């Protein structure tokens, strides 16, 4: 089967500003494809082009084996979308929102009834059909928005920062739903800037200033993008530790790539980090910082992206 999405030299310019700069990628069917990047990096612009809402300046996009250009009517039936901003009508009830979407996609009465049942079950909103959508909390609304967006059983669904502003437990529940969808053969294209969510994707593209700077599975990105290993240090004073190590790095006393505060811990990145542990310990001791723990850990995506953003 052809990939769910193929972009070829996809470019979008707004006047002099290049929002998306000739990007190429493929997203395989039945997988969660994560599209990562900081705010303003071109994520939403790319999604809008893939949905046919925005014409590309150059390049082309194929979705589900057909060109987006000129096939919008067909793709509208086969593709789903849940936007960054809340996409349901707040003043409509749960039931009314679902009915409106179903009618818009031309579902017949029996199908609509069954699918509304499924959607309510999926969102966990059984018995709350008549609640106004605006009265639901953020997590419920996101799940309702997702189950509404798949009411017409799309083969491919685009999610633009679906969990922005939602609490961690609701985010976890939302991702469980995404895994269910993928198990049913749906392709999920999701943008996010939560790194823990990115770890859950099968495949990733990292976009920065309109360019893709990293591609591949989370594991592969960590391998290829990271120059060195991560040493996690727990000390009596994390902030002072960062200062001291950065000063030492600047003065050329020790070849480190990165020194970053990581909560109450400090992450130090360098090639062959094991061989530098002794030196680091010596520096900290001299600065009268007590080292509590020190261990070489597996790099998180956050480490990778902070390193590659510089």
């Amino acid at each position, binding site marked *: 089967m052809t990939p769910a999405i193929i972009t070829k030299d996809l470019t979008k310019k707004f006047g002099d500003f290049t929002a998306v700069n000739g990007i190429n990628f493929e997203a395989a069917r039945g997988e969660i494809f994560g599209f990562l990047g900081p705010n303003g990096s071109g994520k939403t612009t790319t999604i809008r082009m893939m949905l046919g809402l925005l014409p590309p300046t150059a390049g082309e996009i194929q979705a589900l084996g057909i060109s987006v250009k000129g096939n919008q009517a067909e793709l509208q039936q086969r593709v789903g979308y849940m*936007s960054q901003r809340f996409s349901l009508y707040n003043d409509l009830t749960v039931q009314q929102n679902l009915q409106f979407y179903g009618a818009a996609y031309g579902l017949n009465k029996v199908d609509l009834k069954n699918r509304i049942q499924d959607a309510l079950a999926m969102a966990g909103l059984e018995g709350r059909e008549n609640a106004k959508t605006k009265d639901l909390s953020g997590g419920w609304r996101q799940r309702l928005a997702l189950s509404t967006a798949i009411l017409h059983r799309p083969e491919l669904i685009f999610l633009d920062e679906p969990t922005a502003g939602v609490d961690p437990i609701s985010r976890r529940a939302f991702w469980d739903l995404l895994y269910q969808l993928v198990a049913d053969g749906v392709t999920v294209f999701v943008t996010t800037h939560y790194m823990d969510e990115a770890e859950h994707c099968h495949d990733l593209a990292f976009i920065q200033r309109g360019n893709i700077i990293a591609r591949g599975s989370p594991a592969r990105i960590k391998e290829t993008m990271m120059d060195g290993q991560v040493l996690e240090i727990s000390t009596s004073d994390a902030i002072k530790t960062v200062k001291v190590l950065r000063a030492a790095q600047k003065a050329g006393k020790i070849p480190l790539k990165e020194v970053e505060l990581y909560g109450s811990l400090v992450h130090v990145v360098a090639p062959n980090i094991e061989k530098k542990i002794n030196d680091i310990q010596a520096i900290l001791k001299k600065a009268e910082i007590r080292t509590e723990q020190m261990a070489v850990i597996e790099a998180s995506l956050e480490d990778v992206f902070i390193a590659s953003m510089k």
Partner: protein
Amino acid sequence: MLKRILALVKKEFIHLRNDWWLPAFMLFGGVLELMLVGWATSRPINNLPLMVLDHDRSAASRSLVISLENTETFELEAMVGDFQTIEEALERGQITAAIIIPPDFAEEMAASNGSPSLSMILNGAESVPAIAALRATEGVIASLNEKIIIQRLGLSSDEFSGFAPRLRVWFNEALSEALYTTPAEMGLMLEFTTLLFAALAFSREKELGTLEQLLVMPFSSLEIIIGKSIPVIIVAFTDFVLMLSMIHLFFKVPIRGSLPLLFLLAFVYLLVELGKGMVLSVISKTQMQAFLLVMLFGMSDFMFTGYAAPVESMPKALQFFANIVPAHHWLEIIRGILLKGAGMDVLWPHVLALVILGTIIMTFSLSFVRRALD
């Protein structure tokens, strides 16, 4: 296609039910406004406050003041002793007019070659009462003149027979302001209601962030436009029927012409304003922006309708503009059908203009909105 349009219309009506103040405003705001305008203008202008500074204090000067009061246009606010009081009262807007009678008023009236004079000061800041005051005073002075002439010619009043005009006012015998103001006001309220409602159609969804979703769904742009238009047409037309019933029942505005013709042309006019409103709607990003644009367009249309100032007395360039404002033709049609009982044989130039302008506006609007949505 029908099913999808129906789904949209249903959704729009749920919004209207939830946001009940919006349709309530659309339906009853106009009626209420008409009620106030009709009420305030249903009587002729009278009881305008007048101040008199009488330097003469004679029988003749007193009789002049009484004649002025008898016109009912004036109500004597005060007889004052100095000019400063008048000046202050005018500045405060307390009085509409002041009369200053010179010390030799009676003397000059009585003398066979005298030329009596008097001064009048009007508050021109409010031109409508000022003009009414001027007319009433002119009437009093005219009859005073007549008296002087009779007296000087040594005739008795039975012998004198001057020019006695027979004036008849057509279409509005009592010259009731309400018959003039309420149909015009109704026409304008229909414009504002339709424009505002149509302007909210897309700006609202844009502001709430739901328009994107609507565009991703399998609606064609034409379906969206039709689905959004139907509720506007239903509400605006209901509003029109309500307003028409109101002015007919309460202010006795006659419906002398054909009612079906009026309804048909109201519908045509409504479509024209709908088209304009939709364009405003897609170029606005928020409801507030749409609202302000409606005010801007509505207000400038208002100037060209001929309601505030007759189109015939405008400068040539503005007269041209008035002819391309649909509301101008619409007001002529309303007045023609209601007050004059005019039919197509008389109204055709305005109907033709409305249809031509309507076709241009609708064609532009449809292609503009479709392009904006695609």
